[in-house]
């Protein structure tokens, strides 16, 4: 039996983690330029989705010293929120904005309906079934039939109503038998 002594060399030599945020971009001094920079920052838990596509950036405004970014947290207790605030400050500072304030705004509460079309496609390609629209009448909130992100089958069952992060539930596809994450509508 051959046992590889260097799994890292065999399996992961090509693997480089995707950059968490864009490097080397400079701010052009405009509000639009800040939005462009924010589009380069990815969610810490789901790196294929940017903060813009996640729909959590509510406002960008000039202040006498720099800019203020207003964002809405996804889940009240989600630890990613703190990382996101730190990332925003770091990226904007790196791009040359002298003074960055990050404000959290609770109203209106974030909803998965704000995830952009591009964000939904990115989630799907990443193996996470995107959320369905939030129903006006919330009945049977945990009962969903998301399409499998791998084979598009609707023969799916919920394995766990709560998942690896607050925003997800764990499902299994009965057609291709693969488990997958489902982004819960909120």
């Amino acid at each position, binding site marked *: 039996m051959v046992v590889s002594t260097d799994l890292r060399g065999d399996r992961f030599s090509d693997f480089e983690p995707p950059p968490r945020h864009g490097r080397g971009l400079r701010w052009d001094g405009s509000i639009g330029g800040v939005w462009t920079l924010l589009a380069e920052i990815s969610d810490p838990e789901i790196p294929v989705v940017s903060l813009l596509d996640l729909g959590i950036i509510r406002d960008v405004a000039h202040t006498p010293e720099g800019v203020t970014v207003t964002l809405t*947290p996804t*889940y*009240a*207790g*989600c630890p990613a929120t703190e990382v996101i605030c730190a990332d925003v400050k770091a990226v904007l500072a790196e791009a040359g904005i002298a003074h960055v304030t990050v404000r959290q705004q*609770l*109203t*209106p*509460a*974030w*909803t998965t309906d704000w995830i952009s079309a591009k964000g939904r496609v990115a989630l799907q390609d990443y193996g996470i079934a995107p959320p369905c629209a939030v129903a006006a009448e*919330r009945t*049977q*909130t*945990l009962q969903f039939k998301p399409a499998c992100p791998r084979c598009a089958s609707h023969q799916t069952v919920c*394995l*766990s*109503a*709560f*998942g*690896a992060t*607050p925003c997800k539930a*764990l499902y299994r596809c009965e057609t291709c038998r693969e488990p997958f994450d489902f982004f*819960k509508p*909120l």
Partner: protein
Amino acid sequence: MSGDLVDTGLLGPAHLPYLLRLADGSLILAQRLLEWCGHGPVLEQDIAFANIALDLLGQARLLYTHAGAREGRGRDEDAFAYWRDEQAFLNPTLVELPNGDFAQSVVRTYAYVAYQHGLWPALQTSTDPALAAIAAKSHKETSYHVEHLEGWMIRLGDGTAESHTRMQRALDLVWPYTTELFTEDTVTLAVAADGLGPTTAHLAEQWTGATQAVLATATLQAPPPSPFRSTGQQGRHSDHLGYVLLEMQALTRAHPGARW
């Protein structure tokens, strides 16, 4: 000096205790649920309790931060969570009761999240706009908690003879502590008068309607009303809270200001 600040920042003397009742209720229940982490009867349930606890912790953090800002004496969320002693905590006794077996944890958690499910919509018209915003945000998450716990209430209540027996035993033990949630006192009366929050009668109506339907489907019987009233919201707790706080606060108090 503090009196002036309280008058300007807080809407009346009941404002701070009311915010702390809500925040402490969420924090202490989160602590209890987290005791299940790594011990859940099945992996999915382990994850579910941990996730619900995280949402409750998020509620507590928002409420503490807001309470500290309104109070204007420089207290942040950590000051409230780690540096108050037992008598200063104003959570209802219900949430500090020991977890017991899984049935007892399900019944207790269901009782409280069902209460929150009626509370959050009523708070969305609060005269405290930040409290209304926290309530609107929390309500979406609580909807998931309620549905999940309802599922367990019914599955175990209307399950095997053993699961039914344990659920009924848990209900008999836990249910008398729910009366405190709907007991009028100077705080709840002032809160309702100031438009900060709903009356206890409104909350009782919401909660009773929702829980009665679930208990009926679960083939469980609420114990008859008793004169017993727990008093956690007055700062008079059961013996159990001290142990919860000891575990939660020990590290911070042993190493004040420590960071990592």
